[in-house]
């Protein structure tokens, strides 16, 4: 596929052109925080950054969304549905986050179940990624099957060569976006290779080899290890809400008036005690022990059984933001060494 050069000043022009046909969602500063949001102008886009605190999964799977709104009138019940047709282009997304979309695709678009809310938004989207030249101390994407220059799931991957970007087309659509730019030279490509090698080496030595982890966890539901680290867990939803691959949700209705209301879907979290509370009052996961075990088992065992992949992209957000520094890498390492 094509590999072209885009100078730093030309990025703005590219964005302006793309903005004509798409809503562009890119990293921007909002209220003191770097996050993915729709842009009004190309100037807002931030491309010198490590990663956002919140994952971009909310583009396809918002924290809350109205599934439908109903209102009862004399002439009958009117139902309104959400607008899923917005043409969106995600710009400047990291490979780990793009990989998370591929994992979410497996859940929301499986043989058993097709989630129209997620899938329509996905179908109406394109992705321009940004390679990681300088992974963070908390990144471990290479441990879970990805990498700082991985372009799976993207239309186009941008690599920062310092004074310009090398644009790698991944799909035909991506090729179409960079038609008018000049080809990358051999020197450019070599520079990209060097930066890539450096980045991959820069990721903290693979924390632990996760080969065989799924099989190991198969027999570990009742292991003692789950007693060792759960007490510090606060039972909040920080890790799950910031995680690019966590996808659990709850559905409930809210009445606005006696005759109208909404059915909402909202993020839920297995870390919260309410998650498995039965209507009888029984809760099979009574403490943080069962819930932290669930997190690890789901991501590194159950999901692998169901979809052949770890439900983790190694972005490190949970490590960075956990209020009590419960480090998933340590947990994995402990288990791997058992």
């Amino acid at each position, binding site marked *: 596929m094509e590999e072209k050069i885009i100078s730093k000043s030309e990025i703005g022009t590219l964005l302006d052109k793309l903005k004509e046909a798409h809503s562009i969602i890119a990293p921007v500063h909002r209220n003191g925080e770097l996050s993915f949001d729709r842009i009004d102008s190309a100037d807002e886009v931030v491309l010198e950054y490590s990663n956002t605190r919140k994952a971009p999964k909310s583009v396809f799977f918002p924290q809350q*969304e*109205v599934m439908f*709104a109903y209102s009862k009138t004399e002439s009958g019940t009117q139902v*309104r*549905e*959400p607008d899923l047709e917005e043409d969106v282009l995600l710009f400047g997304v990291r490979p780990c986050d793009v990989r998370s979309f591929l994992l979410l695709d497996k859940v929301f678009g499986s043989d058993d179940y097709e989630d129209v809310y997620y899938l329509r938004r996905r179908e109406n989207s394109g992705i321009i990624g940004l390679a990681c030249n300088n992974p963070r101390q908390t990144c471990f994407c290479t441990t879970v099957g990805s990498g700082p220059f991985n372009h799976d799931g993207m239309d186009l991957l941008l690599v920062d060569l310092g004074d310009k970007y090398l644009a790698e087309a991944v799909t035909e659509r991506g090729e179409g976006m960079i038609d008018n730019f000049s080809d990358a030279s051999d020197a450019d490509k070599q520079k990209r290779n060097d930066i890539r090698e450096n980045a991959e080496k820069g990721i903290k030595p693979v924390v632990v080899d996760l080969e065989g982890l799924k099989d190991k966890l198969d027999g570990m539901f009742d292991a003692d290890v789950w007693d060792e680290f759960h007490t510090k867990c606060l039972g909040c939803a920080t890790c799950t809400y910031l995680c690019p691959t966590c996808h659990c949700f709850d559905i409930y209705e809210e009445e606005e008036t006696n005759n109208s209301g*909404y059915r909402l879907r909202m993020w839920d979290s297995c870390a919260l005690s309410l998650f498995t509370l039965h209507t009888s009052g029984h809760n099979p996961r009574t403490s943080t022990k069962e819930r932290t075990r669930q997190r690890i088992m789901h991501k590194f065992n159950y999901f692998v059984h169901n979809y052949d992949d770890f439900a983790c992209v190694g972005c490190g957000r949970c490590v960075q933001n956990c209020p009590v520094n419960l480090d998933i890498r340590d947990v994995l390492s402990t288990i791997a060494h058992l």
Partner: protein
Amino acid sequence: MSEATTDWEPRIVAFLCTWCSYAGADLAGISRLQYPTNVRVIRVPCSGRLDPFYIIKALQRGADGVLVSGCHPGDCHYISGNYVARRRFSILKRLLEYVGIEPGRVQFTWISAAEAERFAKMMRKVTADVKALGPAKRLVKDYGAISRLVD
């Protein structure tokens, strides 16, 4: 959410305690005293029963004003309900105003069973206060913020 037009009338929720304030309201009615119709009354056994949830929920649902009224301190039918309420509401009112809820939207008072005239005056005052503030917008739930619906 009510719209501010020239004929906009505020909708005010009034939580009245059964033994004093509600009885006072009743007496105002029997005495044919005139007062604005903006107030919707919700009767509670005692002002001390009123959980701040009710006040906050009323605001979230679009009430333009909230009034809570109980027996005068010392006269509570349940002896000390209004003393407890006094502390609770004092802190709540200060907190709500601290975050920017306009003073006058949420008000508290004492009205006894015999004070029909006081009740009527209070209704007029609160209605005028809230009318001057305009329709409530702060803390009102905006479903539009979390939905983009196709008609």
